[in-house]
């Protein structure tokens, strides 16, 4: 309903420029006014300098052998891109390994972050006392930055004296010596697990808002018709959540594909760079080794993947809606 209101008010003709009320007469001639531009100017300066220019400048960089520490940055055409698809080039192996790491992380974290928060939201959507308290508790880890949760989990996952192994040892699992941060598959379990813990509350709150938006009369009508709890979930709750679901899946995929801090702080890419994500490798290549040309090329390839995934995801979830 709110959305409709917005559409309607947005569609009404707006008085021109400095904004004299439309007097009913045909005032087709609009007096030019600087006012809109004055309002826009401060943001547009920021937007141009830190979004538009870099978006294009990045492409330009990617076409050069852009070593930031050298005096000259010679033009190399598409070489930075073709290198990425040439086995044996200095960057191809590392880049695709990092893309694979990002892919693995996304593949395992997204389903968990789509399903578990829904279950939590369903619990929270019941009526009970203290609901806001519990909702806040589940959201609390999310307000902390990745730096805090990174150093915290790095300690908790320490194989020798971390609390996770200690607790597992008490119940006799893993001899208290699981190499959580240094060997596979443990490192992935750690990274995915801590990320689910960290960001679950965010998705749960979005689900909860979606659940509360579903018309309660639908449930009453279904109950009258004799639908059981499961049928109500499938036929009312899930369809009602579809737009929210599309949002959550998209946002979670993008967030997972941009994972950096967890690998940087907890595993440092170990073992043997296998948990070094694409973002982590691009940042290292560009801002540590200052080979910005190849880093820029990689960032565009990664961006292309992300845009494609978003489009596919949108198509797929919209299609199932039409069925």
């Amino acid at each position, binding site marked *: 309903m709110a959305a409709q209101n917005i559409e309607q008010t947005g569609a009404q003709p707006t008085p021109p420029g400095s904004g004299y*009320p439309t007097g009913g007469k045909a005032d087709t001639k609009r007096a030019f006014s600087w006012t809109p531009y004055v309002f*826009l100017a401060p943001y547009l300066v920021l937007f141009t300098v830190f979004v*538009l220019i870099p*978006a294009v400048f990045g492409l330009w960089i990617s076409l050069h052998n852009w070593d930031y520490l050298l005096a000259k940055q010679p033009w190399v055409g598409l070489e930075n891109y073709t290198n990425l698809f040439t086995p044996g080039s200095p960057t191809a192996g590392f880049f695709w390994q990092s893309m694979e790491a990002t892919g693995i992380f996304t593949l395992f974290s997204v389903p968990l972050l789509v399903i578990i928060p829904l279950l939590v939201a369903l619990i929270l959507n019941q009526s009970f006392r203290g609901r806001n308290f519990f909702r806040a508790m589940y*959201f609390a880890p999310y307000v902390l*930055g990745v730096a805090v949760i990174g150093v915290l989990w790095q300690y908790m996952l320490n194989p020798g004296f971390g609390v996770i192994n200690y607790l597992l040892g008490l119940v006799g699992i893993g001899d208290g010596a699981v190499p959580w941060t240094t060997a596979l598959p443990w490192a992935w379990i750690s990274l995915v697990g801590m990320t689910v813990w960290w960001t679950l509350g965010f998705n749960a709150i979005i689900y909860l808002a979606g659940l509360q938006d579903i018309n309660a009369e639908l449930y009453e009508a279904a109950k009258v018709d004799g639908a059981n709890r499961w049928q109500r979930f499938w036929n009312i709750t899930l369809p009602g959540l579809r737009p929210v679901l599309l949002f959550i899946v998209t946002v979670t995929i993008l967030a997972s594909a941009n994972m950096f801090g967890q690998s940087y702080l907890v595993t440092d890419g170990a073992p043997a760079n296998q948990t070094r994500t694409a973002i982590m490798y691009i940042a290292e290549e560009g801002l540590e080794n200052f080979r910005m040309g190849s*880093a820029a090329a990689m960032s565009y390839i990664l961006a292309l993947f992300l845009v494609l995934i978003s489009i596919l995801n949108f198509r797929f979830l919209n299609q199932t809606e039409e069925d």
Partner: protein
Amino acid sequence: MQGTTAKPGGRNAGDLAKKLLTYAALILLTLIFVAPLLWMVSTSLKPNTETTALPLSLLPKQFSTEGYSTILNSGSQSPALVWFFNSMIAGLANTLLILVTASMAAYALARMEFRGKRVLFAMIISTLFIPPIILLTPNYQIVDLFGWLDTLLAVIVPGAAGAFGVFFLRQFFLSLPKELEEAAMLDGANRYQIFFRIILPLSKAPLATLAVLSFLTNWNDFLWPVYVLFTPGSLTLPPGLSILQGAYSINYAVIMAGGVVASIPVLIVFILAQRYIIQGVARSGLKG
């Protein structure tokens, strides 16, 4: 426990069991989410020898502020107090910059007609979908060009260029009734007066939401400050924590003390502004 007072009778017994089960699940989940945070606080108050000695103890056997004094000391090589103020200045300045620039731009886009409006709006919105990684290396060079590397300006200004604030406030301005502005115009008010005296006072809630979300984002930002800030005196807390982790490797009392210092302000903001944060997040999903 609240809400477990049962009335006699068969049906209520079933209700009671269900309620107990719900609360059991709720409390278990609370433990999962909160226990690691309590562990961080507890560890930060232990002498360092205790943090790596088995068996681990839930509470400090011996209270110690050694972790805090190591980093809060003014002569410290890892001056967490300086990082704290840097983070505070950067967060507040960035938030203010976003509020001013985004609200003005959003108002023009919501309520004024001008050439190129549609194209401009489409362009701003489309950048919401640009993966930020492509801006990383170019922005590093732009910031370097301005001489901002290793200064707080690097973590204040570029982050204010995002489109979210403009989009978020424009949606709200569109939902305000136009009659107020039209009445003011008839009374001879100009756009500037209308914006400052009518629109902004009506927009306290969305402005507060945007302010809180912007502050949290800036306070927690990690990748960018790790690479654009490097001398100990100019760091914010997130890259500072990364430095602590490297410098004190297994001195976990110190590292956890740093974690607590970095958490307290955002947890306070969260407790005070919970409504705005949760509404802001919830609304972002309903739009999608």
